[in-house]
């Protein structure tokens, strides 16, 4: 067991973790933040994407202990004072989700992409979301939602 401190959605948590506990399971099973989901074993699907120190990271490919003293944002922490984050709102407005299982990861990957300044065109957005799989939407409305927030046509 290793003692770590994670700041998740602005709240500090001190935990004793088994080194092999992946960050996604720490979030889900230790902190009850079940919004973050697991869709594959091979870092391919991106469903588990969270922000670590502000950048998109696949939380299935990071140990909980590696996140010691880091700031993590999950889908639960994205809205503020009851208002959806603009990306969440745009996903709703553009029908960018169906079953919703990939959605938390897709939203956080989009937030990271937009904040990096790389969402400069439809094509850049499509390439910027290459790390996240969605099986329902064909990405069409996801891309439209991100375009709307990034202000690119």
């Amino acid at each position, binding site marked *: 067991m290793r003692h770590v401190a994670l700041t998740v959605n602005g709240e500090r948590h001190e935990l004793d973790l088994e080194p092999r506990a992946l960050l996604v399971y720490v979030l889900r099973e230790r902190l009850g933040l079940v919004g973050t989901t697991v869709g594959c074993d091979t*870092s391919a699907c991106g469903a588990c994407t969270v922000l670590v120190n502000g950048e998109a990271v696949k939380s299935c490919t990071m140990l909980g202990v590696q996140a010691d003293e880091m700031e993590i944002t999950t889908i639960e922490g994205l809205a503020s004072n009851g208002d959806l984050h603009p990306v969440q709102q745009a996903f709703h407005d553009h029908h960018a989700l169906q079953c919703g299982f990939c959605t938390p990861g897709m939203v956080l*990957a989009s937030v990271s992409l937009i904040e990096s300044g790389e969402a400069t065109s439809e094509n850049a957005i499509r390439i910027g979301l290459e*790390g996240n799989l969605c099986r329902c939407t064909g990405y069409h409305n996801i891309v439209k939602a991100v375009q709307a927030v990034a202000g690119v046509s």
Partner: protein
Amino acid sequence: MIPAGFDYEVADSPAHALELLGSSADAKLLAGGHSLLPAMKLRVARPSLLVDIGRLAESSYVRDAGVQVAIGALTRHKDVRDAPLLREHCPIVSFTAGEIGDPQVRHRGTIGGSIAHGDPASDLPSVMLALDAELVVRGSEGERIVPAREFFTGVFQTAVGAGEMLVEIRVPKLGASTGWSYVKMTRRAQDWATVAVAAIVERSNGSIERAAIALTNMGGTTLRATAAEEAIASGTPIDEAAALIPEGTEPPSDYAASAEFRLHLAEVLGKRALAEALER
């Protein structure tokens, strides 16, 4: 999906990392973890100890080193991609770092981890080989410099010995007469290269005088296309020389392509890489 159990230690300096690494026979260094953790999750890799070097902030840098640019082994792909020094002096490195995996991978994966993993399908080893980069390896006896040509020794094998770690990558500053290209074919954007070709060329009067050509996923390690390089040096036209690129390679057959198709792709992509390098 869950790794087998292991011990975990955090290194607070490179020396400490080496000390920890020496403490267990099958200890592994953990940097960004984007090669190691997927293998551990599938339980293909089962180290007994992970030495976390991810917190060695002093090992993440891109620095001017005279005729070279020095890159700390723990520099993330994203930071390599964005480094102004590399964009100016060795853009093939920053370009290729931006082509690795996907944004999430580039936010965690490191240049040192990627190179030291020795994956023949990985992009940066070929770029290092084409650049004749120097890899700085540190062991208990101190540091040694390994030329890229001697670094990649086999499938997932490199010159980094037990108890050693890759600490720095030194790439040459490319002059105005030097062109470059990295042409990669993937099935999907996020995939490993089916085949890719790195080319560094010396231009003279609108043609290629000399070329260094390295191949990704055309054998057990990244490879130099020596026959084609020699043909170009002796004045053979590019198209003809490109036909020699596959010579001496033994590419794998897998889900993405047969060996036969890879031989073909190496020639086509090589030709395109040379043409692009001539222009840029």
